[in-house]
């Protein structure tokens, strides 16, 4: 131990710390939870950033003793909440304000790091360029935002700090600017001023924000709304920008143990012998568990509604390991070091078994059987004897006849990789017994209610004795739609009676968490010479890894969405011929699972690459060819009668399709007409080895799962006329809490600040299926609207009575009351305030708690549509691709919050950019992962980003009270194929496998005609 003295947030500190302890560990132990753990081993994520002598450094790779005599700043020293009752405070720092106001905060896990890095920059350089800002924050990885809004925020803060733009200017300057560079031909959107007409006292907070471009259809223009459609501040932004202890690991429990897991070093083996005695004997070890110590309960880790649409093939611990990284034993110890030491003392003798590391080998005769356990529970066509986790056979129309009617048949095989969600907050859970001996699971999950239901039998507890708390989530992207590690901590709490924390390292995220299903996809398309598609076939070999979680539904969506877009034209439009066959097989690799897009990005890589190649071969304009065959408004979703992720399929008419307008807007924005087919533009002066290219992909997604997933909400009125909105929906950084609050505020006639959102806790909030399938705004939002309407009805009833009593000459019915500006207003303008209504209800007359509940499930899944464009520069000698610009024009229905929604698009495009050029998970011949950190698994940094641009084409989806469709997943779908098509445009090389790495393209270039001919 060493005694050190240093300055922490301007206060002298005297600490005694272990010699080898990192500053991150010391700070968090002392309660500085704004310093985040990203799990990395090489300081690559930057979530733990602090300022050391005013410069940003990673506290995870700095010894605490190194700061002796130096100055350390954490986010806790930066600013504070502006409103603390009678105590006057300086409020947030201008950088924090700018981050909040600019919509730069999504999950908020990396936000404190951005704020500190920005502070260091602006103190040294008050007037930075955008490039300098990007360089200053490049040490901090963000998986949510695409960096655009954080950069805008820092530039804005710089202006404020220079005195060039006062804070007042961008908080209340009289209105939002209209979108700049309005695409020609677009219909102007109504001003988003937030003006509520006669009620100026609560006019929406006006400030300058960077608004995405908007195209508004007449159906949307007719709707006059005060809260929906406005760039309201995120309801959780203030706490996140201060680094408050909002996340699962930001908790102190007396006597809390640290859990670690022994992971399998071999891909497939039986555990012949395991000896835990030495580990158990190590001082400081509280429990060591192997498969012999806990009940053998088969289950699925997929966080889905009951019954889980997949096989039950998983045990908390088993006598067999099925991939490198599979679980062998659990340890709980007083410290992380002791737990790791204990892992080394566990003696395991493995009986190696032949492994399947290539999905193409899984169904071969004589292949080793990965799931030979008798407890295996089949679902649908799963067949463990053949290593088949799921099978799908869908024939729509007469596919063979369609092929016969074609002038040409195009066939090709495409390959998509396994990729990781790479949320910056690792999986983390804390479990403990509460005072009623109920098991509390505080976990970073997208599916708290599924966690409770699925784990109950695994732990031997009834559902009612489990409480799942979901605090803020530091990103999930589907990775946390999995009941992945909660059981580890829970078993150890049951074994020891003590609180247990289990937090994945970044390496564990790569070797033991879930990922996107890799697939081999064979396309066969029949086309007439005029470009009419007569039949379209997709055959998929999907690799689910060692367990079948999400295997069926992810792969089903691969066809259900991507193969639904092109139905054909003429008679084929009325009766499309589509085939989708898929085999989902087990291999001895880490299991795949849910990842944003949920199978659809896998489908659009082959579909959109294929369409591009067909159109070029036929000499057709690639966009016109696509639009000729694309599905249109009023047509039947072709898969709706063939397959459903949830229940039995039912016919579904698509009511809103903004695809043509998306194409028009996107083309205008990227300058398609000036670039496509223009040889001058394709060449780079002075660099004969470089070529420019432009590409497009059209895509569609779904919105929620029809007839299955349900969301609930309850709203309670408080004495002052504010409301508690309780939702089981889980905001994983998407801003869903905010848009749900906006919808409630819209119905109740109050500002968003009067809606206090709480999500989620299985004890207190209504059920919600969780955050997945692009469903929260649509499903949970509709539930919120129903709950708000329930409350509004009660308020109006009471208000009508109060107004009639107050103004005896006035007779008003509840139906005539308008809720607006925190008032219940009669047609003649007489009103009572909501605070008066609340006091009347709670204290004065016929007392009652005004509250309402709502729940909603949908009979339809209205698809959002998008046109995605990419511009690239290709080095035709090395194969290196530089993506210069990404544009997405998207029809997601009505946009509830343009700033949070555009943040979703930018972040999604950035993740998809990785899928296009750099992200993949590769295994060697014995199943060892190549990627175990965020160095080898490269995700884009702020200082290497292309230009990102978004246009919202707002249609009005009639199946939702506010006309919304999904936003979150669709940006994942089209970037990779658009980049692939742009590469083709640049150099004539066809790459069939993503990501387009330099060597892949170099080989494709060698296989194609000389580039000089292009």
């Amino acid at each position, binding site marked *: 131990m060493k005694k050190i003295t240093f300055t922490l947030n301007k206060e002298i500190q005297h600490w005694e710390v272990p010699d080898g302890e990192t500053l991150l560990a010391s700070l968090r132990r002392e309660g500085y939870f704004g310093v985040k753990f990203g799990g990395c081993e090489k*300081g690559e994520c*930057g979530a733990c950033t602090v300022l050391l002598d005013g*410069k940003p450094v990673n506290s995870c790779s700095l010894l605490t003793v190194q700061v002796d005599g130096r100055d350390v700043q954490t986010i806790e020293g930066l600013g504070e909440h502006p409103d603390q009752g009678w105590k006057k405070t300086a409020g947030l720092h201008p950088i924090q304000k700018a981050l909040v106001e600019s919509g730069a905060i999504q999950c908020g896990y990396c936000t404190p790091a951005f704020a500190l890095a920005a502070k260091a920059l602006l103190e040294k350089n008050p007037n930075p360029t955008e490039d300098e800002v990007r360089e200053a924050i490049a040490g901090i990885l963000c998986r949510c935002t695409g960096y655009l809004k954080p950069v805008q925020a820092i530039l804005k803060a710089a202006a404020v700090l220079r005195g060039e733009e006062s804070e007042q200017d961008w908080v209340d300057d009289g209105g939002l600017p209209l979108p700049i560079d309005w695409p020609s031909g677009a219909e102007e959107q109504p001003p988003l001023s937030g003006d509520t007409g006669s009620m100026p006292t609560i006019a929406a907070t006006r400030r300058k924000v960077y608004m995405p471009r908007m195209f508004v259809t007449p159906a949307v223009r007719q709707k006059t709304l005060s809260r929906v459609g406005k760039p309201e501040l995120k309801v959780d932004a203030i706490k996140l920008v201060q680094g408050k202890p909002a996340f699962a690991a930001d908790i102190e429990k007396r006597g809390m143990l640290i859990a670690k897991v022994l992971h399998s070093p071999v891909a497939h083996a039986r555990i012949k012998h395991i000896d835990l005695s030495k580990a158990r004997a190590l001082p400081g070890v509280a429990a060591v568990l192997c498969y012999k110590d806990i009940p053998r309960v088969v289950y699925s880790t997929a966080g889905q509604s009951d019954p889980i649409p997949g096989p039950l093939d998983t045990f908390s611990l088993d006598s067999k390991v099925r991939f490198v990284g599979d679980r062998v034993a659990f340890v709980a110890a007083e410290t992380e070091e002791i737990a790791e030491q204990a892992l080394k003392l566990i003696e395991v003798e493995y009986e190696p078994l032949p492994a399947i590391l290539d999905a193409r080998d899984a169904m071969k005769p004589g292949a080793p059987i990965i799931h030979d356990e008798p407890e295996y529970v089949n679902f649908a066509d799963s067949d463990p004897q053949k290593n088949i986790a799921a099978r799908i056979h869908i024939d729509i129309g007469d596919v063979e006849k369609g092929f016969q009617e074609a002038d040409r048949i195009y066939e090709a095989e495409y390959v998509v990789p396994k990729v990781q969600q790479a949320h910056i907050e690792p999986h983390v859970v804390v479990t403990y017994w509460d005072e009623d001996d109920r098991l509390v699971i505080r976990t970073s999950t997208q599916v708290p209610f599924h966690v409770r239901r699925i784990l109950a039998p695994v732990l031997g507890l009834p559902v009612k004795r489990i409480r799942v708390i979901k605090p803020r989530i530091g990103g999930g992207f589907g990775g946390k739609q999995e009941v992945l590690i909660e059981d580890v901590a829970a078993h150890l709490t049951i074994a020891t009676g003590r609180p247990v924390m289990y937090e994945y390292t970044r390496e564990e995220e790569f070797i033991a968490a879930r990922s996107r299903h890799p697939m081999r996809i064979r396309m066969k398309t029949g086309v007439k010479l005029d470009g009419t598609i007569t039949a379209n076939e997709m055959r998929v070999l999907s690799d689910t890894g060692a367990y079948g979680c999400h295997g069926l539904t992810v792969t089903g969506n691969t066809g259900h969405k991507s193969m639904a877009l092109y139905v054909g034209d003429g008679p084929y439009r009325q009766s499309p011929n589509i085939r989708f066959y898929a085999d989902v097989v087990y291999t001895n690799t880490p299991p795949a699972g849910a990842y944003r897009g949920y199978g659809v990005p896998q489908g659009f890589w082959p579909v959109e690459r294929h369409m591009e190649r067909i159109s070029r071969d036929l000499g057709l304009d690639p966009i016109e060819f696509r639009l000729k065959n694309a599905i249109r408004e009023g047509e039947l979703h072709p898969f709706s009668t063939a397959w459903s992720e949830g229940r039995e399929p039912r016919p579904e008419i698509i009511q809103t399709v903004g695809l043509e307008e998306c194409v028009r807007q996107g083309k205008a924005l990227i300058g398609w007409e000036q670039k496509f087919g223009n040889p001058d533009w394709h060449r780079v002066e002075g660099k004969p080895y470089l070529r420019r290219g432009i590409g497009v992909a059209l895509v569609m997604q779904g919105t929620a799962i029809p007839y299955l997933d349900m969301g609930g909400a309850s709203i309670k009125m408080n004495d002052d006329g504010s409301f508690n909105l309780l939702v089981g929906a889980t905001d994983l950084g998407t801003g869903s809490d905010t848009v749900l609050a906006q919808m409630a505020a819209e119905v109740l006639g109050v500002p968003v600040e009067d809606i206090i959102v709480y999500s989620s806790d299985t004890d207190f909030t209504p059920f919600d299926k969780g955050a997945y399938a692009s469903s929260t705004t649509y499903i949970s939002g509709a539930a919120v609207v129903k709950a708000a309407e329930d409350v509004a009805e009660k308020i109006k009833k009471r208000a009508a009575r109060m107004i009639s009593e107050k103004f005896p000459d006035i007779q008003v019915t509840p139906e005539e009351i308008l809720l607006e500006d925190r008032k219940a207003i009669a047609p003649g303008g007489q009103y009572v305030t909501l605070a008066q209504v609340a006091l009347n209800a709670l204290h004065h007359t016929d007392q009652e708690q005004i509250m309402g509940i709502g729940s909603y499930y949908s009979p339809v899944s209205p698809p959002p549509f998008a046109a995605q464009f990419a511009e690239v520069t290709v080095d035709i*000698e090395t194969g290196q691709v530089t993506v210069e610009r990404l544009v997405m024009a998207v029809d997601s229905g009505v946009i509830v919050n343009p700033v949070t929604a555009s943040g979703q698009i930018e972040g999604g495009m950035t993740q998809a950019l990785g899928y296009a050029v750099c992200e993949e998970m590769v295994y060697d011949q014995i199943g060892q992962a190549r990627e175990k950190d965020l160095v080898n698994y490269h995700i884009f940094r702020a200082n290497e980003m292309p230009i990102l641009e978004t246009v919202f084409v707002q249609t009005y989806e009639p199946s939702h009270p506010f006309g919304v469709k999904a936003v979150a997943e669709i940006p994942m779908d089209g970037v990779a194929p658009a980049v692939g098509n742009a590469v083709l445009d640049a150099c004539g090389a066809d790459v069939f496998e993503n990501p387009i790495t330099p*060597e892949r393209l*170099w080989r494709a270039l060698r296989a194609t005609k000389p580039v000089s001919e292009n």
Partner: protein
Amino acid sequence: MIKEYYRPKSVPEAEKLFEMEGKKCVPLGGGSVLSRLKQDDLCVVDLQDLGLNRIEVTGQKVHIGSTVTLQQFIESEFIPEILKEITRKSATLNLRNQATVGGYVVTADGRAPLAIALMALDAQLIWHPGQKIQNIGDWFSLRQALGYWISGIQFNLNVQLDYEQVARTPMDVPILAIGVARWPSGRTRVVLGGYGRAPILALDGPEGSGVLEAVKNALTESGDEWASAEYRQEVGQVLAKRILSTTA
């Protein structure tokens, strides 16, 4: 992991720590690598108070103190722009503020851009005690310390350095990199990287002939999980040609 930490205030004090019996001490620069090691029990000696954080130029030679951080290196007026850009590719600002030049060199592998560049420049490590000089290439080949710690690194400034790399993204770790240093005398050094445990010297000759052959030969065994040798050989020559086409 680190079991003992010392921060000497003077060189003699530091020397005594390295001479402690029964203990194997290792020098600590910025700590960005050593602080994370968990395999071995270490005793570390923090060099931060020994005054090794200066950059000095004597004649055509620049001397970089071993505890100069990578960011100090970038901000120095003496450092050529191309080395600054290479350093920027080598580490993000957070790491550059912490990692020292000495620590970077000691822990660098073949994928480290600045290490490739320094080896092309034929930089020399100066070891304490005794001011023993070791060519950086010898360090990468043998990983053999000539003293307790590196007090500095030096290289000539009158050398033209060129650098090219191929990576998946602009700031990614290189799959293939080439550094070419050309002295006024015509001496030419070509160093390759983007794979392996250390940068590889492809050529050190009195003039620049034979570079393409040398690059191709040096990359014969370069295949790994990130790229094939065939690719690296072909593209290595492309990059070399591009560099050679620039005026020396």
